[in-house]
C-alpha cells in the first residue's frame, strides 16, 4: 500500500513535468515512464486474465481504454486515466479497510482464552476445549468466554457489546451469565453450561456473518445487474466506435475516443461493493444495539412494516408472574398452594413456575402420574389416586365444575379434585417499564396498526391494550389460534409488511409465518429465537422501533448508493456518447463513485441510536 502511494506520487510528478515541458520527445518519454510506473501491474493482471478468459474484469477494461488512448495519440489522457484510476483504487482500498475494521470492531466479542480450573490450579486454555460442567474463573476486566452459572462470587457485567445496554448488570451466585459480556468488578467462578460452539457469542457471530447470505432484493438486483452491465456497456462501446464511421463516414478516431470513455465506466464495482456493504453495516450497527438481524432481506421487509402484532406475556410484560392471593375452599391456603405446586411441578409454563416458586414446602416430584398437558387450558394429573385439574375457568367449565367469579386482575388458576372445586390462586404479571413508550414510538414511526394476541383472559388483555394504546386485541387464544390470526392479518395488509413479536415456544409458528418475526432473546425460548428473523438481546420492546429506524436508514443509504452510482454512470455514458465527457470524467464515474458509495455505506454502521424513552410507567 505504502509503496503504491510513493509510486503514484512519483508518476504524478513525472506526468505534471511532462505536461509543461516544451520538448515533445522528452515529454513523450516521461509520459511513457509515468504510464508504466502506475500501470504495469494492471497490464500484467490484464494479460494474465485474458489468457484465463476473464475478459470483462476491471484491469482488462482499463488496459484496453488506456492503450486505445495511446494508439489515438492521446498520451496525457492515457497517463491521467491510469493515474487517477490508481489513486481512486488506493482510496477505495483505504475506505474499504476502514469499514472492515469498524465491522470487525463491532464483532470483537470473541473470547480468546478461558481460565480453566483443574485439580485446584488454573490453566489458560482455548474456550473450544472446555466441556460442559467444567469450572472456569473469570477475572475482572476479562470477557466471559462461555455461557454458564455462577457458583461463587458476585460482580457487575458490561453487556453492552451484546445488548447495546450501557448500564452494567449486577450478577450474584446462582445467576446465569452469557458469553461476550465483560466482567467489570469481582472474581467469578462459573460452571460452564454450554459448549463453545453452542455459546451465545458463537451464535451471535455466526448469525451476523451469515446474515448477508439472505440477500435483500435490492442486493440481488445489483448482483444480477452487474452481470449484464459490463458486457452491455462494452458492446455499446464497440458499436459507438465503428457504426458512426461506417454509416456516416465520421472520423474513426473521434468516435473511438468516445468508445474508450465507455470502457472506463463499464466496471460495476461501485454498486457491487457499496450495496452489500451498506446492508452489512446496517446489520453490524443493529447488532451493536442488541438487535440481531438474521438477513439483509429482513431489514428490507422491516423498513416497510405496516402492522406490528404482539404477544403479551414475556413480550410486553415481564413474563415473571407472582402469586398475589390464594382463595381456598375447604383447604388451608398453604395446602392449596402445595397441591397446585405439586401438579405444576413438571410444567415449564411461567405461571406454573410462579406457583412452584411461591410454595415453600418441599414437594415429591414423582408423586404424579398420567399427566396430560391441555395446552391453552391447563393440565390434569393423577395424584394420590385422585384425578386433579388445574387451569383456567374454561377448563373447569369443560368438566362441569362451577367456580366462583374472582374479581382479581391477572391470571386466576383454578384447582379441582375429582370434580370438586378446591379454590383458586391469583397471579399477576407486570408490564415492562418501556412497553408504553415502545408502542408510542411505533405509532410515531408511522406503523398503521398495533395488535395484541394473547392466550390471556379478555378483560386482562383489554386492560393491557388500553394502558398501552394498542389498536386491536384478540384474547383467550390457543397457540393454533395465534397463527390463524396472523394469517388472516397477513391477508389484510395493504402494501406494507406484518411484524410479529413474541417470545414463547407457542409463538414460534407465528414468528415463522409473519413477514418478519422478532423474538425476545434473553427470555425467549430457543424455539422462538430459532424461528425468528430478528432477535432482541435485551428483551426491550422499545428496540422494535429502533430496529425499524435502523432498517429504514439502511434502506435509504442503499437506495442512495444505487441511484447515485447508476445515475452518475448513466450521465457520463450519455455525455460521452455526445463527445462532451472525456476520460477524466469517466474515471471519476468509476472509482470516484466507488469511494463515495463506500463512504456513504459506512454511515449505515453508525452504532448509537437513541432509544426514545419518555415517561416510564
Amino acid at each position, binding site marked *: 500500500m505504502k509503496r503504491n502511494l510513493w509510486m503514484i506520487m512519483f508518476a504524478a510528478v513525472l506526468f505534471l513535468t511532462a505536461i509543461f515541458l516544451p520538448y515533445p520527445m522528452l515529454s513523450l518519454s516521461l509520459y511513457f515512464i509515468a504510464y508504466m510506473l502506475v500501470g504495469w501491474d494492471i497490464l500484467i493482471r490484464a494479460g*494474465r486474465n485474458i489468457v*484465463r478468459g*476473464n475478459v470483462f*474484469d*476491471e484491469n482488462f477494461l482499463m488496459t484496453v481504454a488506456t492503450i486505445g488512448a495511446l494508439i489515438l495519440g492521446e498520451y496525457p489522457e492515457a497517463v491521467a486515466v491510469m493515474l487517477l484510476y490508481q489513486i481512486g483504487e488506493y482510496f477505495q482500498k483505504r475506505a*474499504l479497510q476502514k*469499514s*472492515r475494521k469498524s*465491522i*470487525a470492531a463491532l464483532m470483537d466479542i470473541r473470547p480468546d482464552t478461558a481460565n480453566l480450573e483443574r485439580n485446584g490450579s488454573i490453566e489458560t486454555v482455548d474456550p473450544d476445549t472446555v466441556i460442559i460442567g467444567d469450572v472456569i474463573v473469570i477475572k475482572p476486566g476479562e470477557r466471559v468466554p462461555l455461557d454458564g452459572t455462577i457458583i461463587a462470587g458476585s460482580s457487575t457485567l458490561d453487556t453492552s457489546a451484546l445488548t447495546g445496554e450501557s448500564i452494567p448488570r449486577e450478577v450474584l451466585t446462582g445467576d446465569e451469565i452469557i458469553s461476550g459480556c465483560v466482567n467489570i468488578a469481582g472474581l467469578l467462578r462459573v460452571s460452564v453450561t454450554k459448549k463453545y460452539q453452542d455459546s451465545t457469542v458463537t451464535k451471535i457471530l455466526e448469525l451476523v*456473518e451469515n446474515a*448477508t*447470505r439472505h440477500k435483500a432484493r435490492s442486493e440481488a438486483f445489483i*448482483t444480477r445487474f*452487474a452481470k449484464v452491465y459490463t458486457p452491455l456497456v462494452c458492446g455499446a462501446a464497440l458499436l459507438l466506435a465503428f457504426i458512426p464511421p461506417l454509416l456516416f463516414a465520421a472520423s474513426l478516431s473521434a468516435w473511438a475516443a468516445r468508445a474508450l470513455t465507455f470502457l472506463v465506466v463499464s*466496471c*460495476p*464495482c461501485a454498486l*457491487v*461493493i457499496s450495496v*452489500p*456493504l451498506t446492508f*452489512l453495516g446496517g446489520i453490524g450497527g443493529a447488532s451493536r444495539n442488541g438487535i440481531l438481524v438474521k438477513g439483509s432481506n429482513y431489514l428490507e421487509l422491516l423498513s416497510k412494516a405496516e402492522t406490528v402484532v404482539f404477544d403479551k406475556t414475556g413480550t410486553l410484560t415481564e413474563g415473571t408472574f407472582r402469586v398475589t392471593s390464594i382463595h381456598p375452599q375447604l383447604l388451608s391456603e398453604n395446602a392449596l398452594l402445595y397441591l397446585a405446586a405439586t401438579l405444576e411441578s413438571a410444567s415449564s409454563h411461567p405461571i406454573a413456575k410462579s406457583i412452584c416458586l411461591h410454595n415453600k414446602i418441599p414437594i415429591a416430584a414423582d408423586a404424579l402420574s398420567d399427566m396430560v398437558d391441555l395446552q391453552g387450558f391447563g393440565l390434569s394429573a393423577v395424584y394420590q389416586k385422585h384425578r386433579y385439574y388445574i387451569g383456567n375457568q374454561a377448563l373447569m367449565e369443560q368438566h362441569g365444575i362451577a367456580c366462583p367469579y374472582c374479581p382479581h386482575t391477572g391470571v386466576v388458576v383454578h384447582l379441582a379434585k375429582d370434580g370438586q372445586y378446591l379454590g383458586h390462586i391469583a397471579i399477576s404479571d407486570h408490564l415492562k417499564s418501556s412497553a408504553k413508550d415502545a408502542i408510542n414510538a411505533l405509532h410515531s414511526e408511522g406503523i398503521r396498526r398495533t395488535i395484541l394476541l394473547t392466550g390471556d383472559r379478555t378483560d386482562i388483555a383489554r386492560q393491557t391494550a388500553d394502558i398501552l394504546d394498542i389498536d386491536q386485541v384478540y384474547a383467550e387464544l390457543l397457540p393454533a389460534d395465534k397463527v390463524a390470526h396472523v394469517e388472516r392479518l397477513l391477508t389484510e395488509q395493504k402494501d406494507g409488511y406484518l411484524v410479529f413479536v413474541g417470545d414463547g415456544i407457542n409463538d414460534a409458528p407465528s414468528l415463522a409465518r409473519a413477514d418478519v418475526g422478532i423474538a425476545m432473546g434473553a427470555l425467549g425460548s430457543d424455539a422462538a429465537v430459532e424461528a425468528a428473523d430478528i432477535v432482541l438481546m435485551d428483551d426491550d420492546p422499545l428496540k422494535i422501533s429502533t430496529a425499524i429506524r435502523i432498517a429504514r436508514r439502511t434502506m435509504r443509504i442503499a437506495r442512495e448508493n444505487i441511484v447515485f452510482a447508476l445515475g452518475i454512470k448513466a450521465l457520463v455514458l450519455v455525455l460521452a456518447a455526445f463527445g462532451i465527457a472525456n476520460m477524466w470524467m469517466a474515471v471519476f464515474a468509476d472509482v470516484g463513485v466507488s469511494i463515495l458509495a463506500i463512504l456513504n455505506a459506512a454511515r449505515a454502521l453508525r452504532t448509537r441510536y437513541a432509544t426514545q424513552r419518555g415517561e416510564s410507567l
Partner: protein
Amino acid sequence: MKKTFSISDLNCAACANALEKKLSTITGVKSVSINFFLEKLTLEADDDQFDVILQRVKRVVDHSFPGAVLT
C-alpha cells in the same frame, strides 16, 4: 462438514462473486460462499473427501486470483 477459512487480497466484490460461482461448480463442493467484506470463505463438503476438495478449491483460487491467500 462445513469449515470457514480466511481469504485475503481479493480485488473487488464483483470478482469475489465471480470466484464464488466458479468454486461452486467444482465436483464435491456442496456449498461455498465468500464474504468479501469479512474476507471469509465457507466451504461445505463431505467429510471423507474434504481435504481433497479443499485442495481443488485452493487450486482454482490460486489460478483465478494469484494474489489471494486462503488459510
